[in-house]
């Protein structure tokens, strides 16, 4: 990928960005921009939406049509944009808190509706922006400022949740695999319908410090060691899979996309 092409997508004037040194969100942004470049998308016709969180600061740095909305609600806004102008490429970038805590309902409904939006969930297992509170993906036993004695509730498996809600493309990678991130994001954007790419990342500042992974490199190493490709995971027992991050494509199916269905409905009504 020629580097200059990627740079065109940046609002370089706002750099360096606000993320902590080594925050995985930058790795993901980078992968997204490479995907958009590879797919030859036009920034004027590409919408990047987000909610609120460290992750959700991403659109501000991307020189496209960017929409930084309210916490958890970005898929609602993105749905309005996509339905009003189906010709736009719409990407929605969210944190684990944004997507699965406050935004959980919009997430499952976007999955159900199968609207042509690509959701990138940057799962760092914590609320980074607000200082390290537990999220719905914080692993049991892990510490967080609102779980000072360790989290006791089972976490969501975001890919399972998306699948249960009816999503038609669901994949997972970690930031230790930037090329895989890029590849799944590309496939998600090309997919007709709602696509979910969960990217497992870290917040060493808020999560890592309390849970023995305090540097970015610690986290990189952790991801390398804990990831298991789906094909391999399918051969493993539940016990063997404890603490593992399964990467790969979980769902990829073909169902009519919502805005296309809508256009057909209009055509039918207008006769």
């Amino acid at each position, binding site marked *: 990928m020629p580097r200059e092409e990627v740079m065109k997508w940046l609002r370089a004037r706002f750099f360096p960005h606000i993320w902590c040194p080594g925050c995985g969100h930058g790795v993901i942004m980078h992968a997204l921009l490479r995907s958009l470049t590879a797919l030859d998308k036009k920034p004027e016709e590409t919408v990047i939406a987000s909610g609120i969180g460290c992750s959700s600061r991403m659109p501000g740095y991307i020189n496209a049509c960017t929409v930084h909305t309210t916490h958890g609600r970005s898929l609602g806004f993105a749905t309005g944009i996509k339905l009003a102008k189906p010709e736009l490429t719409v990407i929605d970038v969210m944190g684990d808190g944004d997507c699965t805590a406050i935004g959980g309902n*919009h997430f499952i409904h976007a999955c159900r509706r199968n609207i042509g939006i690509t959701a990138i969930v940057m799962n760092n297992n914590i609320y980074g922006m607000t200082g390290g509170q537990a999220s719905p993906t914080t692993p049991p036993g892990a510490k967080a400022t609102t779980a000072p004695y360790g989290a006791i509730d089972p976490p969501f498996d975001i890919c399972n949740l998306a699948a249960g809600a009816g999503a038609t493309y669901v994949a997972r990678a970690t930031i230790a695999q930037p090329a895989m991130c890029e590849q799944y994001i590309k496939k998600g954007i090309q997919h007709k319908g709602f696509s979910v790419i969960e990217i497992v990342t870290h917040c060493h500042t808020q999560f890592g410090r309390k849970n023995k992974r305090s540097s970015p490199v610690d986290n990189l190493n952790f991801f390398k060691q804990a990831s298991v490709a789906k094909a391999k995971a399918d051969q493993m027992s539940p016990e063997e899979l404890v603490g593992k991050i399964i990467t790969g494509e979980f769902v990829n199916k073909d169902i009519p996309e919502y805005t296309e269905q809508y256009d057909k409905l209009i055509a039918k009504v207008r006769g």
Partner: protein
Amino acid sequence: MPKIAFWQGNMGIAMGAIAAGCRFFGGYPITPSTEIAEAMAEELPRLGGKFIQMEDEIAGIAAAIGASIAGVKSMTATSGPGFSLKQENLGLAYMAEIPLVVVDVMRGGPSTGLPTKISQQDVMQARWGSHGDHGTIAYAPSSVQECYEITVEAFNMAERFRQPVLIMNDEVLGHMREKVIVPEDDSLVLVDRKRPTVSPDEFVPYRADEQDDIPPMAGMGDGYRWHVTGLTHNDWGFPTNNAAEIEKKMLRLMRKIDRFRDDIVKYDTESVKDADVLVLSYGSVARTALSAVRMARKKGIKVGHFRPVTLWPFPDKELETIASRVKTILVPELNCGQMVLEVERVVGKERVVRQNLVNGELFKPAEILSKIEEVA
């Protein structure tokens, strides 16, 4: 030729929206506003527009704002509980300056309250419901004809001032059917948001024109790239923590409405010239009050009526002028006293008499008449 229709108030709003160019509706059903959504679901696809029922009111207004960001005039409608839920995203539309029309068909509150009964309990919420300061434009129609016309005006104001505009309808007017003279489409004056005239490279999305304090707005997909955020931002739309930039943004948000307050404010009067008693009321109550005022006049009581059509901005100057000549101002409301606070602020609390009803019913003419007789 204008057409004659027999419509519910809610239908009047839906048809007004369509006439104003609304081509997107995002909402969630709730009594007594649902007919607006239902009418939009039926009408929009016929015009190539889009109706979407979202998973809740929060998503409903989010989708409507999204569509407006994409360049399509859009609307959402709800009632009390849903209006409360929409407050956060309403704030985003104020902050990001996104045109939008939001309808609240008022029922009895608080909470689930009285879904099928009238109140005027949300009029202060219209002004103060969302956290943080912003200018407010909110209308209270009194007839189905006005439901239609005010909706057109609401869209025009939303587009002109780049902000949400509220229509505070009530259950009685929302549900009652009445004659409407529907003007021909081309007789309507429609306003569209200002579009940028500069090239995409020169576009600074929140740089306001000096003559009106309003920044031109590009639709997404129109060739411009810009950033929308609910964070306080600078002219580039980029979040700022700089005191001067913050203040600039906030003051402009207020000023863009304050400056043109005279263009926005709307009110109606009847028999105020020689009045000793002034009845101030709005919405469906104004119909009862006018009935009572007319009965009282027949009895020789010098009473007039003042009807704010814009609740916000409140017609304060106008009221003050008229009120200066009257002895008593009677404010009947279907709440525990809300707009009356503004009346008291404007004319002083000494001469103001409240009349409040919170039993789910509309005032009957005899009730207001007897209060007029009491204070006259």
